[in-house]
């Protein structure tokens, strides 16, 4: 240990120690000379050897190399700028991707102790749900010893007087804000004791954004009475702007869940254990020392106790699995392929960047041949030369890394602004991003620096294998990326113009959100709505559906049919649905009211399940229930039009489902004019409700938005890859031309025509480019398998995309080869032969 301290002490006082050593040895020499011993050793060398004992010589050498590298790079600003640009792109793209991943999944939310927060889910064999009834959660809160706090959250829309737009409220347990460490600025947050009783004074806490938008950040709003859903409530505070809540969607206000019935006039909701009760999401805070597993076990035994009391509301063998709750997005298994895809795309870009840079460095190596020869002649060992070249790569990588982190930050910031993600997401790089960038930078420095360095230092860079690999790798990477980009663009184009199997241009959806309604009440509501709407001119038909087309709700049953895993989308509809959505019956008949156990299936499912047979009258199992197929409809991917593997099953709704149904209205003319009329018609039936009225057209556009983001992202990546590949090819062709100057000169002297020369230059690159393209095509074919489900029915082997991508790549590559190859034609034969 002391040795290390002495060593560091030496480093800090290096100048003095070196001087002392110099004096010592000088004295020694003088004395020896006096005694008649002449010494002809190299003083400098002896001194260096003595200094070596301290083990700091590398610092000097490194400093030397560093200064030399910087000087060399400054001497050729064009090369340096290009190399840094290439690196910045390669690293920046990956940093942005990783940064986003980090923001969403790795970095905990800015709340208090995110690590001890758990999010719970209900699960039993065959069932899962994020929704608990408030009464159930209250039972857990009362009896759990492993959880120090239990949090609930329920989204609801409220009306505020004088505003047409709904207000997004988060009804939460009164401990929610304080448990998550929210602070009020100004006013107070919800009080876990005072605000938690059903007869407490009704209060709300405003979000900072809403306070600014609605009240122009007026501090006097604290203590003021406002009317929500017509009920007076007191504003008690504003949450500080950094407070994130527990997800990406920030609400306008937080209000205690205990007073939610006050706004909606329902009384049983808080104490009802069934699905009709208030649906909430549940989080728990682990007591210090408790493990998630222990909490799950405790909750499982509490659940079985609860099932004894409420056998019809708690599922058989229900368990409450937990996942970390303090993150913006909980990680789920379905996401892995997407992560894999994004990581692969990033890696492809990085590969292209490394290859491109390797090419540039090789080309530069030729220019530096003389310098290296001279250095070698002056006695620089191979190790020293490689170290020098590696240092140069390291300097480049460091600058590239810095630029890459900056680029990644800018991209991420732009992305957050563009997609409207909440402002508390902080895109500035944290230690994870920095560590990621540094390891990428070091990795690339070794990858692109080492191989050319070895070649140059060995003075054997004429071996063309490396060049072939560099080109092949880049071409493969950019070819793959371009194909994927092409597929996504095609899918988007297809989705915008093709028929999704249903007609959405003239449909309006009305989601009344009948929270707290009984099935009978809901039935009455919808009957009234239907009869009122039917009287409006311009309304053609009205239907009910449980998972509205293009909405955010779905019920999917995973099934294995003919060896493929298929998502069967189950939708509960009334018979008017098919006509309203213009989904034709291809065989059989419509569902009949009152006939339970009847289902209609989509033609796509019929084809998979009973190829070549008439499915009408056949039995189909839905979970534990055997149903009879009475009709076959046209395939219409209602909920996820992008997933070509999705198939549909339609059945009549159970009465229990009625409160969560959505009405669909087909208009005879343009639907825009009817939105307001329909909205007020729906409001009049129950003024407490805030029905969400949407044009299906717009929902479809919103759905395409996701695909658009993705397509734009991949197109950008594709262009970056193409640019990198071209830069690399350009560099390598220039290298080959520079290297072959003599050969070309001889050919020209012997009478070769320009076209012959070009052919010679091109021929060397044909094989790697062709091989690279083939590998890229194969890779894209495999990669796009993951994409199948977002391609709106375009096959992942869509020939148009493949041909287009290869064409673009080929053209760009030819251009990149042509430019430097033309240099070859300007070679003066005599000069070139004499020159070497």
């Amino acid at each position: 240990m002391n040795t290390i301290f002495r060593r560091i002490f030496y480093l800090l006082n290096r100048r003095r120690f070196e001087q002392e050593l110099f004096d010592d040895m000088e004295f020694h020499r003088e004395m020896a000379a006096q005694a008649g011993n002449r010494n002809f050793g190299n003083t400098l060398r002896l001194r260096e050897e003595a200094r070596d004992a301290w083990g700091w010589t590398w610092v000097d050498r490194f400093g030397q190399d560093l200064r030399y590298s910087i000087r060399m790079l400054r001497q050729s600003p064009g090369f340096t700028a290009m190399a840094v640009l290439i690196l910045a792109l390669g690293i920046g793209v990956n940093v942005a991707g990783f940064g986003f991943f980090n923001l969403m999944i790795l970095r905990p939310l800015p709340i208090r102790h995110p690590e001890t927060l758990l999010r719970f889910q209900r699960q039993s064999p065959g069932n899962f749900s994020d929704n608990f009834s408030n009464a159930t959660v209250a039972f857990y809160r009362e009896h759990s010893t492993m959880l120090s706090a239990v949090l609930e959250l329920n989204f609801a829309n409220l009306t505020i007087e004088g505003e047409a737009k709904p207000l997004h409220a988060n009804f939460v347990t009164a401990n929610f804000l304080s448990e998550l460490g929210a602070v009020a600025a100004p006013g107070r947050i919800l009080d876990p004791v005072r605000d938690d009783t059903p007869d407490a004074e009704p209060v709300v806490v405003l979000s900072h954004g809403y306070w600014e938008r609605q009240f122009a950040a007026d501090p006097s709003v604290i203590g003021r009475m406002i009317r929500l859903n017509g009920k007076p409530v007191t504003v008690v505070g504003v949450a500080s702007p950094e407070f994130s809540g527990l997800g990406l969607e920030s609400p306008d206000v937080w209000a205690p869940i205990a007073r939610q019935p006050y706004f909606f006039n329902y009384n049983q909701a808080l104490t009802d254990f069934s699905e009709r009760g208030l649906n909430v999401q549940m989080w728990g805070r682990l007591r210090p020392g408790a493990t998630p597993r222990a909490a799950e076990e405790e909750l499982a035994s509490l659940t079985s106790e609860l099932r004894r009391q409420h056998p019809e509301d708690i599922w058989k063998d229900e368990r409450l699995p937990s996942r970390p709750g303090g993150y913006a997005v909980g990680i789920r298994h379905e996401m892995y392929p997407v992560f894999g895809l994004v990581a692969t795309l990033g890696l492809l870009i990085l590969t292209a960047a490394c290859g491109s840079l390797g090419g540039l460095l090789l080309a530069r190596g030729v220019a530096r041949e003389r310098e290296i020869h001279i250095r070698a002649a002056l006695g620089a060992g191979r190790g020293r030369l490689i170290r020098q070249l590696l240092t140069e790569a390291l300097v480049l990588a460091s600058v590239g890394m810095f630029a890459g982190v900056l680029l990644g930050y800018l991209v991420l910031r732009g992305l957050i602004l563009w997609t409207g993600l909440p402002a508390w997401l902080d895109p500035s790089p944290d230690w994870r991003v920095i560590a990621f960038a540094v390891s990428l930078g070091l990795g690339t420095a070794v990858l692109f620096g080492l191989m050319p360095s070895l070649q140059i230092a060995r003075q054997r860079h004429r071996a063309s294998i490396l060049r072939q690999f560099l080109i092949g790798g880049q071409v493969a990477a950019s070819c793959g990326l371009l194909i994927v980009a092409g597929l996504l663009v095609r899918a988007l184009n297809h989705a915008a113009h093709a028929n999704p199997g249903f007609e959405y241009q003239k449909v309006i959806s009305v989601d009344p959100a009948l929270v707290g309604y009984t099935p009978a009440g809901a039935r009455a509501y919808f009957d009234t709505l239907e009869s009122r709407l039917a009287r409006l001119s311009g309304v053609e038909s009205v239907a009910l559906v449980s998972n509205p087309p293009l909405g955010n709700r779905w019920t999917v049953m995973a099934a294995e049919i003919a060896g493929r895993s298929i998502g069967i989308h189950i939708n509960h509809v009334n018979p008017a649905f098919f006509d309203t959505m213009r989904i034709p019956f291809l065989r059989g008949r419509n569902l009949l009211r009152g006939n339970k156990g009847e289902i209609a299936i989509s033609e796509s499912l019929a084809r998979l399940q009973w190829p070549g047979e008439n499915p009408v009258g056949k039995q189909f199992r839905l979970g534990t229930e055997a149903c009879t197929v009475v009709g076959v409809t046209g395939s219409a991917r209602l909920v996820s039009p992008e997933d070509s593997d999705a198939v549909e099953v339609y059945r009549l709704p159970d009465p229990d489902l009625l409160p969560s149904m959505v009405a669909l209205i087909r208009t005879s003319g343009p639907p825009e004019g009817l939105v307001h009329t329909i909205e007020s018609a729906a409001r009049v039936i129950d003024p407490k409700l805030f029905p969400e009225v949407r044009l299906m057209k717009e929902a479809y556009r919103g759905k395409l938005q996701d695909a658009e983001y993705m397509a734009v992202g991949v197109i950008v990546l594709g262009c970056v890859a193409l640019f990198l590949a071209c830069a690399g090819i350009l560099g390598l062709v220039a290298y080959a031309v520079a290297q072959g100057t003599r050969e070309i000169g001889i050919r020209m002297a012997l009478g070769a025509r320009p076209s012959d020369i070009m052919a010679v230059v091109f021929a060397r690159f044909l094989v790697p480019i062709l091989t690279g393209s083939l590998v890229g095509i194969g890779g894209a074919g495999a990669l796009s398998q993951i994409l199948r489900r977002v391609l709106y029915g375009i096959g992942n082997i869509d020939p148009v995309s493949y041909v287009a991508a290869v064409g673009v790549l080929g053209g760009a590559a030819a251009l990149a080869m042509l430019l430097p190859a033309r240099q070859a034609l300007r070679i003066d034969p005599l000069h070139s032969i004499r020159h070497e």
Partner: protein
Amino acid sequence: MHKKEMPSGALALLILRVLRAGPMHGYAIAQRIHLLSSEVLRVEEGSLYPMLQKMLLKGWASSEWGISETNRKVRFYRISPAGRKQLAAGWSDYGRVHEAIQAVFRGA
């Protein structure tokens, strides 16, 4: 034995042993070893100073300013407690190896 390369372990032992008599500057150490070995062993600059640096690093010796016979300000090296320990350990190691080699020669 003129200009014979000495194993570095042995050189360290010799330097430490010489320093045990009192602090000494580099040239004096070389002279002393030369003299004590009846002018057989000769310590060159090229091995003496790296070894002295190494001993400073390991903490076997420390350096201090002193005045030489020729009235010059030079560095004197002084053996440290760690150096004494190293000398004892090294000497007994050396003795064991020496005896072992002797035993082999006697037996063969």
